[in-house]
């Protein structure tokens, strides 16, 4: 049984798992997502337990569809939750904002990634979205609160008829802690969409009315929830310096105060939109100085300054003048600033070590493809990059992701580059990303008579976020069989000029097809298929079969082979002057043996 279904009093849960547990305790009916780290384990966990828990779960094609699905279910009275990473919320934003006006009471989980542990686009603070869209927002500080806040989020959503956002950061998502469990609730019913022409009527006067009503709702939530002690809590303590903090930073503040052996007045913000203005004013008036500890942007800080102006309060404010706005906050940052403000002499070590460079797994189909592309096209082409494991192709020796911007952006940006510089660009995009946001770009290429080669790295799953199925996999998030949509069929239906398919583990074939397609004029799509090696290896192990291995039979041939250096498989290693294949790392794809005669399959005796 999965830990989130535990019937014990307490469990040791990841923040993301606690979100799922909270949803189950709230009697959730529908859960949707598009995988994106640090939110991925929310969907992964739902996928594992949905059938058993009697709920509906899906991996949607992208976050916008996931959000719309959750909203539709909520319109019918079902309880629904949708989760996504911060950039996903941008994709969903177009539908999210009007859904606030229309009052669909679903719960939205958005996970920010300060320090960009698993993100490359921007260091976005999604609390701006709360303000832009008038979305009540809760910020849990640990796994226990993740669970509790989901339950409460459903209550607020249904009481005020408004979506509620739970904003997490990586450290909250990916920290395990002890969680006190409640009862899992089964909520059944006949859900129905009730027509209301007055409410759903799209007209400009109605929209203005909705706007006014949303503002009224937010004001009510401020008074009836935010100002109360449920989320925004003043914790005792004495002294003329106070602290306001939220989310993961709360745990750093508590730890630092304990280490410094001091108990200062503390306002813990659990609902960061709308903020409790009266409570903040009251807190400020009791201290001379306040330190605001929040992750990424100075959002609470700026609102505190506004509140001070409104109430005529004069308290000294510290926040982003002392604490980092870029990168992840750490316990050391908070400890350092607090000891400085308290006039304590504490040594704050500043050392960081250089991290190991991540690379494609041994046997990864993408490595073979990047190698073949380089052999076919050299280095002077423009390589439009996209989001997935294959952004590791940015690193040397591959250097075939000249830019990585956003899901599907490789296509449109490469098209623009071609229009400006008249050279055919190479678009390198993964299968899941193609389905998520690459398709409109491809259709646009056809429509506007573009000239580009799109290479789709089709490894059959959404690999980077943990092997979730997508429309090409043939399996739903509930584990049911479904149609497996072929990318080459989509390309043909889009009237792409040249469509080819190749086997990722056949280097010559990929190289030749890349060369051939690049020489054509017009829109070309090459779908390179090869299963994620992690899946292949896991399957072999599960079935009790041996993973094929390769070994070096001719040192000279290997030493003089420049292509092997371009392949840079982590299993091919050198000790002294001897080359060897690390038998523990080799996952037997055999690509090395295709490009160098000095390597042969290992005969297992």
């Amino acid at each position: 049984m999965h830990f989130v279904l535990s019937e014990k009093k307490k469990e040791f849960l990841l923040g993301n798992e606690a979100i799922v547990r909270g949803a189950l305790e709230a009697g959730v009916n529908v859960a949707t997502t598009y995988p994106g780290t640090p939110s991925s384990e929310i969907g992964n966990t739902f996928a594992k337990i949905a059938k058993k828990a009697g709920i509906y779960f899906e991996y949607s094609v992208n976050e916008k569809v996931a959000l719309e699905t959750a909203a539709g279910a909520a319109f019918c009275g079902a309880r629904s939750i949708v989760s996504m990473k911060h950039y996903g919320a941008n994709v969903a934003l177009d539908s999210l904002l009007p859904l606030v006006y229309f009052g669909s009471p679903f719960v939205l989980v958005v996970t920010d990634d300060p320090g960009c542990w698993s993100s490359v686009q921007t260091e976005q603070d999604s609390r701006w979205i709360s303000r832009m869209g008038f979305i009540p927002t809760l910020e849990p500080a640990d796994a226990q609160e993740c669970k509790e806040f989901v339950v409460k989020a459903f209550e607020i959503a249904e009481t005020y008829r408004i979506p509620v956002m739970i904003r997490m950061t990586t450290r909250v998502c990916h920290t395990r802690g002890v969680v006190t469990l409640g009862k899992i609730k089964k909520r059944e019913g006949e859900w129905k969409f009730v027509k209301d022409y007055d409410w759903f009527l799209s007209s400009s006067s109605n929209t203005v009315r909705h706007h006014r009503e949303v503002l009224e709702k937010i004001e009510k939530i401020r008074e009836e929830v935010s100002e109360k002690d449920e989320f925004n809590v003043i914790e005792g303590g004495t002294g003329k310096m106070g602290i306001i903090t939220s989310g993961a930073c709360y745990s750093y503040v508590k730890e630092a105060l304990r280490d410094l052996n001091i108990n200062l007045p503390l306002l813990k913000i659990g609902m960061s939109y709308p903020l409790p203005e009266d409570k903040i004013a009251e807190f400020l008036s009791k201290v001379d100085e306040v330190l605001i500890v929040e992750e990424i942007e100075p959002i609470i800080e700026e609102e505190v300054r506004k509140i001070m102006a409104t109430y005529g309060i004069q308290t000294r404010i510290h926040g982003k003048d002392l604490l980092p706005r870029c990168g992840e906050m750490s316990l050391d940052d908070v400890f350092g600033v607090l000891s400085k403000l308290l006039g304590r002499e504490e040594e704050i070590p500043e050392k960081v070590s250089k991290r190991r460079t991540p690379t494609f797994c041994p046997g990864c189909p993408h490595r073979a493809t990047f190698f073949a592309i380089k052999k076919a096209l050299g280095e002077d082409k423009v390589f439009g990059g996209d989001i997935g494991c294959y952004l590791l192709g940015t690193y040397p020796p591959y250097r075939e992701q000249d830019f990585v911007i956003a899901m599907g952006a490789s296509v449109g940006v490469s098209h623009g580059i071609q229009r400006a510089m008249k050279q055919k660009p190479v678009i390198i995009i993964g299968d899941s990303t193609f389905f998520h946001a690459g398709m409109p770009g491809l259709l646009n290429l056809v429509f506007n008579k573009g000239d580009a080669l799109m290479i789709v790295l089709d490894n059959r799953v959404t690999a980077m976020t943990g092997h979730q199925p997508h429309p090409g996999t043939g399996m739903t998030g509930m584990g049911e069989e479904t149609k497996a949509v072929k990318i080459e069929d989509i390309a043909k239906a889009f009237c792409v000029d040249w469509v080819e398919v190749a086997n990722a583990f056949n280097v010559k074939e990929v190289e030749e097809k890349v060369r051939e397609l690049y020489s054509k004029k017009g829109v070309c799509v090459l779908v390179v298929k090869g299963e994620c090696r992690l899946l292949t290896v896991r399957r072999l192990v599960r079935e009790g079969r041996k993973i094929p291995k390769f070994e070096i039979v001719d040192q000279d041939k290997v030493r003089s082979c420049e292509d092997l250096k371009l392949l840079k498989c982590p299993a091919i290693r050198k000790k002294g002057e001897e080359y060897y294949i690390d038998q523990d790392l080799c996952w037997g794809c055999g690509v090395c043996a295709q490009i160098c005669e000095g390597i042969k399959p290992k005969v297992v005796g």
Partner: protein
Amino acid sequence: MNILVVGYGGQGVITLAHVIGRAAFKEGFDVKQAELHGLSQRMGSLQCHVRIGKKVFSPMSRKKDVDVVIALELTEALRAEPYVSKEKTKLLANKKILKDDPLGEDLDERVVEEKLREIYKEVEIVDAERKIKEVGGNITMTNTFMLAYAVKKGYLPISKEKAWEALSEKIRPTFLEDNKKIFEKAFE
């Protein structure tokens, strides 16, 4: 107690940190355990904090404030340096070295070991892979061996029973038997 589990992506660092945390939870401690998901899992450096106590707030330790580092690879034990204090940090490390650049210059094991002895208070290096192979296991179970060995040598406030219980809840039933062999081997 502050623990740091380090290694490179693919070695089972996250699983080991989780099992340590889960076992400590079973012992009745408050626990916070930080994981790291994403691209680092593709053979990058992984550092997972586990903090155990009566009441724990922060999932991450302060720099130079870790009590025990458990390293699945030796150079990762060097990379843990910012969290290491000469006054108190003990290291339990697997003997393996996997250099960052597979074709790059060799690292002399003795030099690495010497450096480790310079920065840590105590260093214990164990050849986990050799012992695993002695019982016919494969190195994907290095984490299981290191867990059991750390428990046996008293690096962790965890009993053998709770460690096994936590581990067996975490791994697939089909791999239980193989892991049990390795687990017991560490206690020999």
